[in-house]
């Protein structure tokens, strides 16, 4: 009998709840937490979601197990069809992609993400690049952002290096306002921009002006944790709630889908130790 779950499993559950039944959903590469969230959603509250896997572009695959890299035939087992790279992006450009999951090494208050380079105007650190994020952040109807690295580490000079920043050094994925403060709406993009942000410290949504807002914490994190690890003044919901743990059957499903615990590669060592009690609940509801 499973009595507790890990932070990774809590984050997967929170990501899962952002998926609506019947929408077409896509993930990028290097995103095991999201891969698992999508497979859990498909097998629980969203049986009619269209699941397109990143890297393989397989439609509704049933992976044998989660692989350490995304473009692996084991991820593509049982796919009903495979899209070409152009087909997935065409669907998004035509406004038919319901949800995309995006992340960044910097995420700012408006939900812009930087996956391109740190340091402006002179590059201090080259990041891997955002894949199709520059397109999909504009085109996908809804975006769920996530990062398992909200906590700002102290650098060699004793300064906090924020991941949640006032302004990104480079905007790879567009949020609710561009670098000049121009609102997203002015561009007439297909997509409505970031709807949620899930981190290892809390759950956030976006207010009408496009600014991030804290709406829920984990049982073991506080408002102070969230604020001191954020590079700007947090806005908060009137009532900050608590993120619900997954049901036992969902935890069991995650462990079956990811026997190699690939998703723990995304989680920092400190957070791997966190445990959360499971409570008796009815089936997951979105």
């Amino acid at each position, binding site marked *: 009998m499973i009595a507790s779950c890990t932070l990774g499993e809590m984050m997967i559950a929170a990501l899962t709840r952002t998926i609506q039944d019947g929408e077409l959903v896509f993930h990028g590469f290097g995103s095991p937490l999201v891969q698992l969230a999508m497979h859990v959603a498909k097998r629980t509250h969203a049986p009619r979601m269209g699941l397109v896997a990143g890297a393989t572009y397989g439609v509704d695959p049933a992976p044998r197990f989660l692989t350490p890299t995304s*473009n692996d035939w084991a991820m593509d087992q049982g796919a009903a069809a495979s899209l070409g790279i*152009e087909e997935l992006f065409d669907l998004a*450009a035509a406004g038919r992609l319901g949800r995309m999951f995006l992340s960044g090494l910097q995420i700012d208050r408006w939900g812009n993400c930087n996956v391109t380079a740190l340091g402006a105007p002179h*590059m201090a650190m*080259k990041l891997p690049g955002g894949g*199709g994020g*520059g*397109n999909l952040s504009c085109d996908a109807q809804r975006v769920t952002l996530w990062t398992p690295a909200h906590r700002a580490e102290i650098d060699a000079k004793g300064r906090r290096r924020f991941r949640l920043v006032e302004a990104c050094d480079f905007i790879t994925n567009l949020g609710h306002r561009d670098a000049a403060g121009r609102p997203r709406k002015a561009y007439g993009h297909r997509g409505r921009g970031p709807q949620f942000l899930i981190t290892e410290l809390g759950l956030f949504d976006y207010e009408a002006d496009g600014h991030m807002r804290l709406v829920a914490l984990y049982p073991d994190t506080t408002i102070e944790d969230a604020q001191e690890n954020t590079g700007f003044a947090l806005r908060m919901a009137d009532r900050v709630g608590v993120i619900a743990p997954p049901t036992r059957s969902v935890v069991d499903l995650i462990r079956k889908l990811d026997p190699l615990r690939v998703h723990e590669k995304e989680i920092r060592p400190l957070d791997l130790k966190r445990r959360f009690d499971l409570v008796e609940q009815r089936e997951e509801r979105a």
Partner: protein
Amino acid sequence: MTSPREIRTEPDKRRTLDELASMVPDGAVVAVGGGLSSREPMALLRALLRRGATGLTVVGSAHGIDVDLLCAGGALARSAESYVGFEQDFGLAPNYRRALESGAVEAADSCCYTLVQQLRAAIQGLPFMPIRSVRGTGFMTLHPEYRLMTCPFTGEELLLVPALEPDVALIHAQYGDEKGNLVIQGPPVADLLFARASKLVLATVEKIVTTQDVQGMPGAVLPYFYVAAICEAPMGAHPTACYPFYGYDRPHTALYHAAARAGAESFKSTYLDVFVHGAASHDAYLARIGGEATRARLASWANGDDAWMNLYRDEAPA
């Protein structure tokens, strides 16, 4: 208007790996096929480095060890990739980072769909394609060649991206015939677009088969007339996967990544001088990585889920 790309009808396009490498001119814009840990034309890239290729621009969507190795080998002047990394498995690409942070290689990052639309323009012989996305991102300043326009039909603002016709596409496929028909099994990534848009298509395959064999095979077939030269290179995608022949060599990739993290000088002596310059031919490379034992280990994915998972359970070379 550029002149049309050639239709290649030679009946026998078989060439050696070194001949393929010599067909890539210095300074060329190169589209590398495959993606992440799968079906990258690694044997051909190693031959390219042994040839001493320089000044190349790479274009593509999601890459890893292929572009990282080209950076280490001094072959690149510019990277217009959308992603270069080792995902969650090993993280950032160390040689790529060093080359771009030092300015040795120009960072001209792109995005997947921008690239797709630019290739489509070239495929159709058009000077540009429109997209809606990217406006509002940093790519607008990174790429001053993009143009904004007002749509004459709807009045909405669109972004025009110029045609991209790579000089060379390097593709590794499972099968091909002497004429150059290629059979790509599993996700084709951007390979078909690359092949249709590029001036010169050079292919390596796991196995050269007859045209009749090609006709009965599952997978996507790229017609011969796009392809200029073909070479049989078994395990030519190693250490990336080329299913159904072999899976991703995670222990070798771990060894590569550790060598790359240790610094440029040390990477040269512990990896480049051993596996690239120190293996004068593809056969010598295959011997260097463990020959038949390694091939059999990587082919064992087909023995069931447990065997498949075992390929990924640890990072120590078997």
